């Protein structure tokens, strides 16, 4: 970007001001991707970098590229990333212990090396004389038309190859995550009929609300003071984390002792 700006002698003041305002944000956000302790924060800094880059593209006349960058990368790709991060539950409990020895040092060295390589390559490259986006657009009769012409004539083979790669990846992801159903699916009408015919057609009693506890793990009490098993989720009962009242807990212990003897 700096190279491009330097190559064109007539950078307007507005453009320069916008560039020097946006570039630090983009670079700062990029650094914050590495420094953030939570994966979701990193993902957000990444989204920030992408949006700032999109604004820079638009400023350079690449309106289509800028808008598509936001739609595709920020709107779809980063959103899927966030999705996965939230679903697998990577949050405050991230571990910062290095599992590979000297991984951090090696990472920093490699990153710096790559940066030097990239800068050397870009600074030594020779660019053809810039004609400006306007000239390219005029040749095809419009901004979108120019891009369409480039994609569907000159680069049509590359374009098709890229789409094949993407489709293969999508099919692969579906094949990897596909799971056969072990039991046949029970449709809603069937379920409702079964429920009406079962011994318990009404909703289960809700869990108890008491002075000390108010949560799904606290069972409701029946008129005789015993806990209603139906009022707590099965899963909690299996885990053994149901919170019984003291009296009930004592009774249960007594029952268990009685069974053992």
């Amino acid at each position: 970007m700096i190279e491009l700006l330097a190559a064109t002698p007539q950078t307007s003041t507005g453009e320069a001001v916008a560039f020097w305002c946006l570039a630090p944000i983009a670079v700062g956000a990029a650094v914050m991707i590495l420094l953030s302790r939570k994966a979701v924060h990193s993902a957000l800094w990444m989204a920030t970098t992408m949006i700032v880059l999109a604004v820079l593209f638009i400023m350079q006349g690449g309106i289509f590229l800028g808008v598509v960058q936001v739609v595709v990368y920020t709107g779809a790709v980063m959103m899927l990333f966030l999705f996965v991060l939230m679903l697998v539950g990577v949050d405050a409990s991230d571990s910062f212990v290095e599992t590979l020895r000297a991984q951090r040092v090696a990472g920093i060295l490699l990153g710096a090396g790559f940066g030097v390589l990239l800068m050397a390559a870009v600074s030594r490259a020779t660019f053809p004389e810039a004609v400006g986006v306007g000239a390219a657009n005029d040749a095809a009769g419009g901004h979108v038309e120019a891009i369409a012409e480039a994609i569907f004539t000159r680069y049509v083979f590359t374009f098709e190859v890229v789409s094949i790669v993407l489709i293969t990846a999508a099919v692969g992801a579906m094949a990897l995550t596909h799971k056969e159903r072990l039991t046949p699916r029970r449709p809603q009408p069937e379920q409702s009929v079964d429920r009406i015919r079962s011994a318990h057609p009404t909703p289960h009693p809700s869990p108890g609300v008491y002075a000390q506890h108010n949560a799904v793990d606290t069972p409701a009490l029946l008129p005789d003071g015993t806990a209603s098993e139906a009022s707590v989720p099965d899963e909690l009962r299996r885990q053994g984390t149901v919170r019984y009242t003291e009296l009930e807990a004592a009774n249960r212990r007594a029952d268990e002792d009685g069974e053992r003897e």
Partner: protein
Amino acid sequence: MRLELSVTDALAETPWWLSAIKAVVIFGFLVVSTLVMIWAERRVVARMQQRVGPNRVGPFGLLQGLADGIKLALKEDIIPTAADKAIFILAPIISATTCFLAFAVIPFGPVVSVFGQETALQLTDFSVSVLYVLAVTSVGVYGLVLAGWSSGSTYPLLGGLRSSAQVISYEIAMGLSFVAVFLYSGSMSTSEIVSSQDRLWFAIILLPSFLIYVVSMVGETNRAPFDLPEAEGELVGGFHTEYSSLKFALFFLAEYINMFTVAALATTLFLGGWQAPWPLGGAIWAGANDGWWPVLWFVAKLWIFMFMFIWLRGTLPRMRYDQFMKFGWKVLIPLSLLWIAIVATVRAVSNEASIDRQDILIWGGVALAVLLVVSIVWDYVSGRELEQPDDIDKPFDPFGGGHPVPPLPGQQAVAVAVVASPSNADSEVLDA
């Protein structure tokens, strides 16, 4: 008197102060419309449900939205202990700012003269403005997802994930429904799409696209019957369960302005934008599309869609989540793709092979009619008939299956003796 200046030129020559005024006016229009919409929604839904609705604050209860807003602002602002504080605050801000941005490219009217300056009644326009609206809405989704995640609670997280999955899925169907419009107008700029509909609205020639867009716009805005992200029965309040006070108000505002955005986009892309509706434009009243009148047509069309939103909410129950996703991915998206293929083929054939479009339509209609006849004949030949329930002839058992049941269609109801309960012991035992 039509001003002879194209929209692009008029916008390019607009001075900065006029752009600033336009931005403020759009902002004010949206906020006031939201207040009116809250009132209208409550009154109309109340009418549909045989109630009165809010009628205490101001004439006809018109200031109810304002009163609600003040009440919200004065509520205690709670940030849960488990919340990620920075993102918890950022999320409603993202939602509420991005929703305003999309209106920058919506044309409210043609080129007019303001303070002696000729300008178009839209803030800005460029070659890909419809894509820009998509981009802005996709950034707006971050608000929902982050709100769900940062609350540090299960229901908001599930609600946030649901809403993002829903919005992303329906954005695909929405984007695909635009393609046919782009093909027919030859542009992605809102002002050009409006001007290419001066003879016929795209809602008529591209009816399937229009229908797909209308369905997906309801899904996109998380409104009933697709309001699954905040399904109270399942998720308490969805992504905004933990939000209170002004932060909640921002989400509320964002939802309503998003409704206006998708409605304005529907008006612009399919209903001819600011152009006068059919009998008015041109023939009857030559000046209907000049000056400031188009703003009236635009706002009227906008409110038709807003009424539809209210109507849907008052009429339809909420869908089940899996049915909703199945509908989006397995019905809407394939249908859109098929329709795009048809539109593109018809366009290409009529452009390249110089075949008249009327011929294509006639032959397409003939093919469809033949298909219909064949399918009807096939039904007769294969001898498939409507399946009748096998117990239709049996006498009606009012306690079939152990529970009181109504008669099936065609069955004769029999009067049953009602046994007086102890509470109304005076009532007599009724005989058949």
